[in-house]
């Protein structure tokens, strides 16, 4: 095991290898401060904060029920926090009119969930093209672009099939393609490999992180698996609705 032990001292290499990092220019794209959110008597978030730099991959870890998904939903403007602020590129999310926030979610954000996120009636290429279509693109252009992404995610062959006729691993790749097709600034991924075996999970992570780096998108990755979190530049732990940053220990 000496090869493993030998890497011990290269601390500081712990953070980002994205384009922003390479240029040594770190700009915060998304920042949440002191978020609180209760569902009835349950305090899902009780003072959670998180800041995400452009092109950075941040892993959000923590035990079941600790508030990870709620944090992600607040960051993405899907759920309104009871208090605290979420700022995306200088704009306060909570202060935005609904229509504007929806447009933001469609254009600037991408989403990947554990499963069940593709529209079952549409073919895979139509699924991937959907965010572009909703943004006003012509069908032909949108599907051409969608094919580029399906190809990149190594699932061009399922383009014409509906989600019910492909495997879980293929479905997640299609979902990654759909999340990235609009060129989002931030991709939100909630247990994206949760339903996959190790090999497929690894491949999906590789493709996701690589694609995000190539397009300089930031990724907020919720996972309870350390090997998945290891694809990130930094880790944040949520405990009882509060965040703890363990990432800069080196």
């Amino acid at each position, binding site marked *: *095991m000496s*090869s*493993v*032990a030998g*890497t*011990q001292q*290269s*601390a500081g*290499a*712990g953070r980002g*290898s994205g384009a922003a990092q390479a240029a040594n220019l770190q700009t915060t794209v998304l920042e949440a401060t002191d978020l609180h959110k209760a569902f009835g008597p349950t305090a899902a978030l009780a003072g959670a904060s998180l800041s995400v730099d452009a092109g950075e991959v941040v892993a959000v870890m923590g*035990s079941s029920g600790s508030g990870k998904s709620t944090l992600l939903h607040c960051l993405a403007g899907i759920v309104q926090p009871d208090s605290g602020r979420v700022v995306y590129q200088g704009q306060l999310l909570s202060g935005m009119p609904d229509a504007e926030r929806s447009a933001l979610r469609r254009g600037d954000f991408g989403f990947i969930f554990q499963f069940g996120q593709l529209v079952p009636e549409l073919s895979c290429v139509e699924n991937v093209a959907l965010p572009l279509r909703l943004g006003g693109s012509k069908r032909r252009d949108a599907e051409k672009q969608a094919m580029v992404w399906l190809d990149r995610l190594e699932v061009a062959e399922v383009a014409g099939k509906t989600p019910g006729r492909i495997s879980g691993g293929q479905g997640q790749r299609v979902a990654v393609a759909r999340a990235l097709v609009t060129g989002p600034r931030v991709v939100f991924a909630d247990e994206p490999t949760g339903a996959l075996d190790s090999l497929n999970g690894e491949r999906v992570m*590789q493709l996701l*992180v*690589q694609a995000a780096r190539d397009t300089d998108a930031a990724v907020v990755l919720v996972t309870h*698996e*350390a*090997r998945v*979190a*290891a*694809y*990130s*530049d930094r*880790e944040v*732990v949520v405990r009882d609705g509060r965040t*703890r940053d*363990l*990432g800069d*220990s*080196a």
Partner: protein
Amino acid sequence: MSIAKTFLGLLETGPCHGYDLKRTYDERFGQDRPLAYGQVYATLSRLLKHGFVEVEGIEPGEGPERKRYAITDAGVADVGRWLSQAEKPDLYLQSTLYTKVVLALLTDRPAAEVLDTQRAEHLRLMRELTRRKLDGDLADQLICDHALFHLEADLRWLELTAARLEALRMEITA
């Protein structure tokens, strides 16, 4: 695992004789490998030399076992340093980590921080291996994966232990 540090941690809970130290050590951390007396007294004399322990009292009679040892301020500081530092992530680390957690609980130090510090160090190494894997060929990938799976097992143990700290505290301080 460091017997010297473990002795210091045990002595921080109160002075005792070499014999009692050995017995407590064997009970708590020895698993099936009890310490030899030679090891016990060699360790204690090293700690004396470094000024981490002192002889608090000598009872009448023969032999080394009549000395009572007490930890010094330097000794307390040394345990504190050890507990607050992450271990180099390595295979078969468990017994050292377990010892650190128990000693932190026994000496009223933040045991959760011992686990967090270690967790961060493990993840740091996992990130590094993952990056190496992405840049490497299949052989690199397989070697890195082997290490990654082992580190992941350690991490799961760290998480479970963190979730059971209160129960462990009750049990060992009962």
